[in-house]
Structures are given as structure tokens and as C-alpha cells.
């Protein structure tokens, strides 16, 4: 064989070289980094082209071993995780002094001192106090205590905790190569204890976790969490330079030195709706910074998808969304949750995603030279380029979380039952649907959702009817089966009620208690929204567009996408890609025919299309009601603060009068998102009126948006890009 360099290489040598390839993995340099190198390219974070081809790892139940061997021995076993480049763990006190002596903090302390006229020592004291309040103090003994306790708790609460072991291996590998950031989805308080529990189980380095200050309200628990690796940050510290500086330096110091993986929740808070929340960028900015500034070669970000078959906080969330304020976390409150312990919460699936290299993400996106001309320790507002990079990365990471969320059959059932509930109600039919009808539809939806790339955990060797009834029985708080018909448990209502005496139930209370069930069900349906959101937006766009012209449909799609960009995870600036992805999926599944000019629905496509439009309909209706409220009500003096109670009252009236069928529109989440959308579109502006945060409503615009949502007005060309 003649290589182009003109050197003759014989076949045998070529084979030897194949063997040598292995040397990269086992070579003297420990260069295993390359094994995953190409998988870590930015394309791997989220590739939308064909979700049907997604390959996912298998799961292993970690509770299985806990049920057969001693928890005590497990809690006391030898725990020797491998750290980044073999560094030794660092004492909290050392870490703190590294932070306090850092150039960055030094600079900010002097700056604050100069600006405020306070003595530098005084400011340093304050910094030190902030750090004391913030810092974790991970102790193995506490971790062992938790390992023991949680084993007991988990075994009572859950049937299984399934983890993809390959993901753990990838994580293990990633930790040794580069600093690692863990980004779990956030659906429950349980999340971060669960994460640490799993990592302990697999002998992986325990993370330090960013937790909200509100935990510190629970004195004892707060300290326990601190000792298990949590560090605490205030919810808001907007302008506090010193606080920000201590905080960011603390996180960066841990990350850069690889003392421990840093874990935080990209969504910022628990999602009460099971939809992924718009990512918060603060911490992501901080953890990407060391790479962008060249302080580390790379940072590996690992999205983790935690899926609960039944969420512990299920009805708590629903009530919160309906306006019962969130109880302040208190230790006694937590103990009240003991009732929870007696129930069955099914299984948990935890999927550790492919590590994402920040370097690959930034490749060709960020010019790192921008840090060349100012000392790196001087804090600067990130450039627009960086902000948009971090924002896009955040969306991609949330999508990476979404795509590995495991959907249980119940999610399909909840979607079907909700749609049925509303349709029957509108048609005045008998409530519920026949069990075998539900089963047939569920099987249909199973196949459809798989085609759209859902990570569905449907036991294949069990008969569909068993699958369905097992799903129903786990969620018996939300559904009733009587006389062979399945329906939402709304008529009795007592499950949702905050314990009011039955005799004096007002229609409004009745409505709210039904809404608790509807919202709970909706939260399960929401788990599959990410699978269908793009096709559903397209389906709705076809519905509201004035013609089949592709450009018209695209305009409507673009309008809806823009409208709902606070509601669903839609990557900014990706309208055309999203449209193409939606077309691709709907064409591939035989729902649409898309030609150069037209978008046509096929004969057999109507069923899917109807399902998709119904899925989005509550949101469309909800946004329209919010618009109507803003147009009809006296909003001259409406402030941001008054908005939610006022719009809720308006919606309650509409529901009671039968002018609106979707109780889930009562969700304050939807209402806030709608307001945010209107503000983003310029239809509502916040002004400095008599009261701070007074809302100035452009009625003409709001009105036309409402009509466009209702398909009464064509989408304006100006709002949408050309396809």
C-alpha cells in the first residue's frame, strides 16, 4: 500500500497500527480523554435531526441491592472516589482562605472600600462572613448518615431507583479529565439528596451543590445539608458586588482545582409544572468562565435527567399554582410530610447524560481573545457574545435534560384523560372514557410518541391493559375507575381540598379543588410536552393560518413560537430549525405533506394533528383569556403585584360561567408566562406609575394578539422572519 507521502506501508503494519490505537487509552499519559472526544462535539448536546435514532443506555435499579444487603454496612463501606487529575480533597478552611486571598476578591474588596468609604478590613470581614454563611462543609460522616437514612426512606417510598450505569462511567471518566459540572433537572426537593446518594453508591466524587438560602430557615436540616455538600446562596443579591464576587470566586475555586464536581439547577428552582423552566444563567456563566478565560483546558457539563413516576410534591405544587402561597420551609413542615412516607411513589429514573465539553460548545462561537486586554481577575460584565453563547448553551443543556427524561405510561394516560375530560365537558357527555378505549388510545399514543423520539418506559412484555391499570392504580389520587370507565377524580374533589368542611363548599371552592386534580394531571402531561411541542406548534399554526401556503403556516408558527417562548423550552433564534424539525417529524410520520409552497394534511394525519392541537389548546386559550382580561378589565392602575390575583378572579368567573373549559388556565405559571410574553412583545409595558411596577397595556395590540391566537386575524408579516 502506498501512502500519499510516498512511503510504502505494508498491510501487516497497518494492522499493527490498529492495535496501537489502544495505546491512547492505556498509554503512559493516561490520555483516556480521547475516548469520548468526538462524542463531546457540540453537535452531540442536542441533535434535532432524527430523534427516532436516539440511542440510550440501559438502567440498573440501585435499590435492589439495598433490599438484600445491610444498609449499615453500605453506609460505612469504604468510599474512595477518584478526583480530577488525582487531586486530594481540600479542607473547607483551606478552600475558604483560597477564596479570601484570591486576586478577584482582593480587587472587589478594595473597590467596595473605595466606593463606600469603609475600611478595607471591614469589607474583608464582611466577605469572610458571607463566605461563612455560604460555604459547604462536606463531611463523610454526614454523608454516611444520609446514606443510611435515605436507604431506609427510599425503600419505603419508591419501588426502584433506576440509574444508567454507563452514564456513571462516563461521569467517572469526565471527572478525572476535566472539572465537572452536574446539571440535574429539578422537580423535587429530593433531587439533590438523591444525586449525592447515587454518586455515593457508585463511588463517584460527591458534588458540592448550590442551594437556595431558604433551606437555612430550617436550622438543623440546613446544617445537615451543608455537611452533605450543599452551599447556600441568597435568592437575590442583584447589585451586591461583594456578595457576587465571593460567590463566584468560591464556585470557581472549587471547580478550577477540581476539588469536587459543582452541582446546581439550571432551572433555578423546582418546576411546579413538570415543564422545564427557562434556564437561569448566573451560575452557568460562572462555571464557564474559567474555561473562557483559559484557566482550565475544558469544563465538562453533565446534564442529568431525573424522572419521578409520581412526584412527592404533586398536589402541593398544584395548590401553589392555584394561589395557596408556598409554605416557608421549616423543619416541622418537613416532618408533617411524614404522611407522605406511607404512600407508593413508584420508581425514579436518573439518566446521566453525555458529558458536554464547554470547549466544544464554544468552538467557533466565542472569541476568547476578548479577555486578553484586561486582567482576568477584574470582574467585568460578560460581553454580548458571551451572554448569547451562555444563553444558547443553557437552552441546549435544558433540552439535553429533557430528551433523556423517562416517560412512564401514566404520562400518556394523563394526556389522554385530560383531553377527554375537556372534550366531554364541552360536548356535555358522560364523564370519563371506557377502560379498553383508553388502553387502545394509549397504545396508539405509545407508538406515536416513540416515533417522535420520546424516552418512553413502557414494559413491552406486559399486556397493554396491565400497563394501563398499573399506571392508574399508582395515581389513584387523581383518577377514578368506576363501571369500567376511567375519569379524573374531580367530582368528589376532596383529594384536592385544603380540608374545608364539605357542607359549605362554594362553587369557587369546588372549582379550585377540581383544578388541583386537573393541574396535577396536567403536570404529568407536561412531562411529554418537550417531545411534541414543535410538532404541536406546527399543528396549531396550520390550524390558525389562513391558508395552506407554507409561508403563511411558517408565519403562524413563528408567531406562536414567539408567543410561547417563556412557556416552553424553545432555543432563542432557532425558529427556522424548529419549523424544519417539526415539518420533518410530521412528514416522516405521514401526518403532513410539505411541498415547496404548501403544507398539506394527509388523510391519516388528522388524528395525530387533532391530538397535537388539543395538547396546545389550553395554552392558546389561556393566553387569550389573559389578553381578554387585560382588554376588558379596568387596568389603568394595575400593578404587577395585583396582576395574578386579578387575572385569577377573572378566570374563575369565566370558568364558572362556562365560557372557558380549561381549569388549568388557573395556573399562575401560565398567567405569568403570558404576561411575560406580552411584555416581551411590547403589548404591555412596566412603567413607573404611582405604584412601582404599574402595567401599561396597549389594548389595541393586546386585542390583536388575542385575535391572532384565536385564528381570527392573520399573522402579521412584520413579526415573523421569512422562511
Amino acid at each position, binding site marked *: 500500500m502506498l501512502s500519499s507521502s510516498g512511503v510504502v506501508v505494508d498491510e501487516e503494519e497497518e494492522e499493527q497500527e490498529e492495535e496501537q490505537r489502544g495505546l491512547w487509552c492505556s498509554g503512559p499519559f493516561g490520555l483516556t480523554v480521547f475516548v469520548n472526544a468526538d462524542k463531546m462535539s457540540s453537535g452531540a448536546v442536542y441533535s434535532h435531526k432524527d430523534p427516532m435514532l436516539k440511542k440510550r443506555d440501559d438502567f440498573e435499579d440501585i435499590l435492589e441491592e439495598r433490599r438484600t444487603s445491610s444498609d449499615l454496612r453500605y453506609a460505612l463501606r469504604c468510599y474512595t472516589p477518584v478526583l480530577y487529575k488525582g487531586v486530594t480533597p481540600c479542607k473547607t478552611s483551606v478552600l475558604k482562605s483560597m477564596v479570601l486571598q484570591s486576586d478577584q476578591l482582593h480587587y472587589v474588596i478594595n473597590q467596595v472600600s473605595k466606593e463606600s468609604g469603609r475600611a478595607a478590613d471591614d469589607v474583608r470581614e464582611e466577605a469572610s462572613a458571607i463566605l461563612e454563611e455560604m460555604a459547604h462543609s462536606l463531611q463523610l460522616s454526614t454523608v454516611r448518615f444520609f446514606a443510611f437514612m435515605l436507604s431506609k426512606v427510599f425503600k419505603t417510598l419508591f419501588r426502584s431507583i433506576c440509574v444508567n450505569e454507563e452514564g456513571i462511567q462516563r461521569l467517572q471518566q469526565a471527572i478525572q479529565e476535566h472539572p465537572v459540572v452536574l446539571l440535574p433537572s429539578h422537580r423535587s426537593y429530593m433531587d439533590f439528596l438523591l444525586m449525592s446518594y447515587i454518586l455515593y453508591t457508585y463511588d463517584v466524587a460527591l458534588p458540592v451543590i448550590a442551594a437556595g438560602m431558604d433551606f437555612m430557615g430550617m436550622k438543623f436540616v440546613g446544617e445537615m445539608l451543608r455537611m452533605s455538600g450543599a452551599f447556600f446562596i441568597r435568592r437575590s443579591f442583584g447589585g451586591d458586588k461583594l456578595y457576587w464576587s465571593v460567590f463566584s470566586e468560591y464556585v470557581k475555586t472549587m471547580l478550577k482545582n477540581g476539588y469536587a464536581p459543582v452541582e446546581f439547577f439550571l432551572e433555578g428552582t423546582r418546576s411546579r409544572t413538570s415543564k422545564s423552566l427557562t434556564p437561569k444563567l448566573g451560575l452557568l456563566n460562572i462555571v464557564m468562565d474559567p474555561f473562557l478565560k*483559559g484557566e482550565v483546558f475544558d469544563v465538562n457539563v453533565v446534564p442529568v435527567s431525573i424522572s419521578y413516576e409520581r412526584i412527592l410534591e404533586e398536589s402541593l405544587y398544584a395548590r401553589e399554582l392555584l394561589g395557596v402561597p408556598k409554605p416557608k420551609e421549616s423543619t416541622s413542615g418537613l416532618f408533617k410530610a411524614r404522611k407522605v412516607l406511607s404512600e407508593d411513589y413508584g420508581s425514579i429514573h436518573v439518566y446521566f447524560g453525555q458529558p458536554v465539553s464547554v470547549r466544544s460548545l464554544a468552538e467557533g462561537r466565542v472569541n476568547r481573545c476578548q479577555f486578553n486586554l484586561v486582567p482576568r481577575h477584574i470582574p467585568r460584565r460578560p460581553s454580548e457574545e458571551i451572554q448569547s453563547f451562555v444563553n444558547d448553551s443553557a437552552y441546549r443543556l435544558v433540552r439535553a435534560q429533557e430528551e433523556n427524561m423517562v416517560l412512564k405510561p401514566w404520562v400518556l394516560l394523563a394526556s389522554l384523560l385530560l383531553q377527554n375530560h375537556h372534550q366531554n365537558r364541552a360536548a356535555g357527555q358522560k364523564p370519563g372514557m371506557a377502560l379498553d378505549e383508553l388502553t387502545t388510545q394509549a397504545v396508539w399514543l405509545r407508538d406515536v410518541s416513540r416515533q417522535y423520539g420520546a424516552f418512553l418506559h413502557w414494559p413491552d412484555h406486559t399486556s397493554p391493559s396491565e400497563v394501563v391499570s398499573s399506571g392508574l392504580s399508582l395515581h389513584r389520587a387523581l383518577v377514578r375507575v368506576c363501571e369500567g370507565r376511567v375519569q379524573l377524580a374531580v367530582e368528589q374533589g376532596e383529594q384536592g381540598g385544603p380540608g374545608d368542611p364539605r357542607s359549605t363548599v362554594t362553587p369557587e371552592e369546588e372549582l379550585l379543588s377540581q383544578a388541583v386534580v386537573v393541574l396535577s394531571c396536567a403536570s404529568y402531561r407536561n412531562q411529554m410536552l418537550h417531545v411534541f411541542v414543535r410538532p404541536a406548534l406546527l399543528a396549531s399554526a396550520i390550524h390558525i393560518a389562513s391558508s395552506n401556503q407554507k409561508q403563511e403556516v411558517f408565519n403562524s408558527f413563528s408567531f406562536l413560537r414567539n408567543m410561547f417562548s417563556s412557556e416552553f423550552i424553545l432555543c432563542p433564534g432557532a425558529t427556522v430549525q424548529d419549523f424544519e424539525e417539526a415539518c420533518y417529524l410530521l412528514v416522516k410520520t405521514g401526518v403532513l405533506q410539505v411541498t415547496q409552497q404548501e403544507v398539506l394534511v394527509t388523510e391519516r394525519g388528522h388524528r395525530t394533528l387533532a391530538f397535537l392541537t388539543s395538547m396546545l389548546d389550553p395554552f392558546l386559550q389561556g393566553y387569550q383569556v389573559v389578553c381578554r382580561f387585560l382588554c376588558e378589565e379596568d387596568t389603568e392602575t394595575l400593578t404587577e403585584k395585583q396582576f395574578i390575583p386579578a387575572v385569577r378572579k377573572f378566570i374563575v368567573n369565566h370558568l364558572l360561567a362556562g365560557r372557558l373549559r380549561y381549569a388549568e388556565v388557573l395556573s399562575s405559571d401560565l398567567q405569568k408566562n403570558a404576561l411575560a410574553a406580552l411584555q416581551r412583545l411590547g403589548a404591555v409595558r412596566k412603567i413607573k406609575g404611582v405604584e412601582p411596577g404599574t402595567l401599561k397595556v396597549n389594548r389595541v395590540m393586546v386585542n390583536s394578539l388575542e385575535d391572532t391566537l384565536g385564528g381570527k386575524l392573520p399573522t402579521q408579516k412584520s413579526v415573523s422572519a421569512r422562511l
Partner: protein
Amino acid sequence: LLHCGSIPSQIMKWNGWGYSDSRFLFNKKGQAEFTGKRYRLSGMIIPGLKDWFEGTFGANLQHKTPPTPLLTNTAVPPATLNEAFVEEVKSTGIPFSHDAEDRVFRAHGHCLHEIFALREGKIGRVPDMVVWPSCHNDVVKIVQLACKHNVCLMPYGGGTSVSSALECPPEETRSIVSLDTSQMNRILWIDEKNLTAHVEAGIVGQDLERLLNESGYCTGHEPDSMEFSSLGGWVATRASGMKKNIYGNIEDLVVHIKMVTPQGVIEKSCQGPRMSTGPDIHHFIMGSEGTLGVVTEVTMKIRPMPEYQKYGSVVFPNFEQGVACLREVAKQRCAPASIRLMDNEQFKFGHALKPQVSSIFTSFLDGLKKFYITKFKGFDPNHLCVATLLFEGNREKVLQHEKQVYDIAAKFGGLAAGEDNGQRGYMLTFVIAYLRDLGMDYYVIGESFETSVPWDRVLDICRNVKARIIRECKDKGVQFPPLSTCRVTQTYDAGACVYFYFAFNYRGLSDPVHVYEQVEHAAREEILANGGSLSHHHGVGKLRKEWMRDTISNVGMGMLKSVKDYVDPNNIFGNRNLL
């Protein structure tokens, strides 16, 4: 053949580095040895090299890639001569040649791709003719004729460029004439009152030092290539010398420059040591890389030869500590004539190049040293690194200076490791270029490149660039981890010069040079992304042109371009470097 240089080209390799008689080889016993008599290492056996070579690169002495032995004239494209120009040159009596060998010899520098092609006998566009002016006036005549007949001139000094600067632009349709300055090699005068010497620009470094030494002086300018590189080349590339801490870089050393351009001769009217007369025109000349004209004569500062020289070395437990020590030395402005810090891989490499020791006693001492450092002091042999030092001056001051530096080193955990190690370190500087040729005999290709970087980024750039090289190699299908190593070679008040060495075994790659170039390109991107400069002293040439605009801004490019447009509107100096 019409010429006779100070270093006739016959005694130089035509397809590798340096003298024909000096090369590394593995003898029949498989031991490495260095041939010839010119260097301290010459004639010695280097027992550790084979194991290091095989272990580091996964190379095998059975797998050889010998070069094409002879240059075949048929491989050389025929010369495109501008007859009128040739006739007029002939009438001036200036020697010239269009012999294939002469032309090929001047068609390249020492970039990897250039040498690799030569070894394979592949010859691209080469100059059509070589001229050997012997003085300033000869150059004036040649440049005038070139302008008159529109031929392309490419100045050639020592041929040690590593920036593709000597590569003939393939798109050049005019006759290309290589203007070889090697015959302009005289010291015209020495001014002992002002301590300056007026020298013709074609003189090579070692001759300049030798001739000045005869009068008790030196310039102290010692780039690693000083055996072969020329004064004119130093000026044209903004060269830097190993001992710049005492003597300065080339821009600190020149007092006066004479350059012949198509618009005439440019020079200053006096030799005032500093002037406030607008932007310094020397700075248009220094770094012009042969795009504006030919530097013919230079007045340089000279110094009395140092009374005393002393080498030294310090071992540090790790690279971080070593860099911290160098930074402190720079802060206290007490850097010796030279101070260099090698990373762990280079330390091991240096170790592998230890010649066979003659006595059991020396080897016993070596063993004892090793024991002391690794076992007694607890240095990890996989992390420790070494700094080499060179002190110069009067004896008393040198010893005092030495103590000061060792005291600082001690604060960073550094242990004095003897003169020998230091001296060997500097000796290796001169033979390391020969080693690349050995590697190329066995499927190993590599090169070095450099940058300058602020102090606070030294560690980051070293780590990231090395890691980038390793990652890129893997991504490009290189089948064994490459050698990816660095050293800090110069200290400044505000930063340091960092050198990277990178080499890999290319067995199994169909286009190794392309892979090499991709990796080097990525490494340069990484350097720039980490706040490093495009070049500290190698220059831009054609290899790094693509980054010039980002490096000096649009306006900067426009400035340089307008100078070129004025000085050389017809692009007579058409090597297309820099811009």
C-alpha cells in the same frame, strides 16, 4: 560554481539541519550516537536515547523512513530567466548561478513541511537564479536592475527561517532571484570609543562573535540558530538572543541600519543613541521580513567579552513552582544572562540525551543525586522540572548574583542541581535541531514554535496549548500520544517567552504533514486564545500571515501596507511575507 561562502553549501545538508558531518544515528548496536567533531556531544554514545525515543513515540528502529539520498536535477523545475536582467547582471560582474542545487538550497527554510518535502525529493517553486553581491553597492545595482526588468527579489541570509518566509510564492510569474547576502560578511570597523561595530549584514552569528572575540569584544546576541543565521536576518525578523537579559534583543542592539529599497537607500543621518524624530524608521525595517528591501550594513553595540561565565541549574518540585520562581526573578530584575525553565517532559528528554559516562564514579554520583532529589526531598520524578542558568560578568559579581538567584529559587522549593546539568541544557539547544532529522528517519515528525505571554497567563497557556496539541493529534488520527512539551526561555518585566515542542509518530497517517500543519494551526489558535502573541521572535512569514490582521488591527495593517506601497510599489521584494 561561481561562489564561495563563509559556509560553503557543500558542508551543509541540503535536506536537513546543519553540517553534513554532524548527525544523530542509531548504530548497529541500536545505540544512538552523534557524529562529527563539531559539538561537545560529537562522537559520543547516548545510551538513553533509544528507550526514550521508542517509549515516547511508540517508534521502532525497524520502521525506517530514510530520505531520498540525492537531489535529482530532473525534479527541479527549469529556471524562468529574465534574459535582459541576466545580461545586465553579468555585465556588473556580480556572481550568479542558475544551477539547480544552488536554487533548491535557497528555496526553503526549516519548517517541517519544507524539510519533509526535500527528504521526499519533492521540489516546488524555487528561485530561478541566485546572485551573490559582495557589498552594499552590489546590492544597490541588483535592486536597480530588478526594478528596471521587473524581476522578483528574495533576500536570503542564513536560511534558518521557520515561518515559510523563504518559500517562493507559487503564484509568482516573474523570474525570482534569490539575493544571497553570504558574501557580505565583513566587519567594516570597530569603534572602541562608542563600543559599536559596523558590520555587513550577511555575516552569520558565529563568525561575528568569533571575529569580535579576536578583538576582545562580543555582541552577546546568541539566538539558538547563531551558527547559521545572519545579522540581516536577525534585523529582518526582530530576532531575540538567549542572553538578551544582559545584551538586549536585536532592537536594543542596533544603532544604525542601512537598507536598499526600490525607492533608494534608507538610513539615519547620525548615530545618536536615542532620537525623538517621529516614529523610529528602524521599526519599519526590523521585522519587515524581506518585503521592503535588503539590509546591507548594520552598526551594532558591542561589549567587552565577559570575564567569567558560569552555568547552573535548579530542580523544582513542579512546573508551577518553577514559573513562580522565574516570575520572582523577573520582578526583582535579577535575571541571569539566561534563565530557562523546562517542563517535566523536557527534563526527561534532557535526561535521555545524557552521553555515556566515562567513569563509574560519575554514574555513582548521578545515582546519588537522583536518590537525594526523589527520595530524600520527595520530588516526584513525573512532576519535577529544571531551570538552566547562565551567569556572565566579573567573577565576584557572578558569584553574588548566583547566590541571589539560588536564594530566590529556594523560596520556591528549588534545589541547586549543578553546573553540568545547566551546561548540557544549553548545549542541547544547538543539537536539538539535528534530532528532528533523526526522528524523521523513523516516522517521527515535529517542530517547535514560540510565543510571548503576560506572566499571569504563563501557566494557563502552557497547560492549554500542550493539552490542545494532544487532543488535536488524537482527533486527527495520530495513533500514539505525541510529545507535547514546553519551556519558558526568556523573562521580561511583564511576561515571558514560551517555547513549545511537539512531535509525533506518523505511522498509519496518509498525509502526515497535513496533520502536522492542522495541529500546529490549532495550537497557534490556542496560543492566541490564551493571550499569547503571534510570535516572539520567529516572525510571521507566510505561515502565520492569516492572523496578522487580528493581531495588529485593520488600521495597523493599513499602516504597514501603505509603507510597502510607497517603498516597493511594484512588489519587487515579492516574497509575500507578513501582509
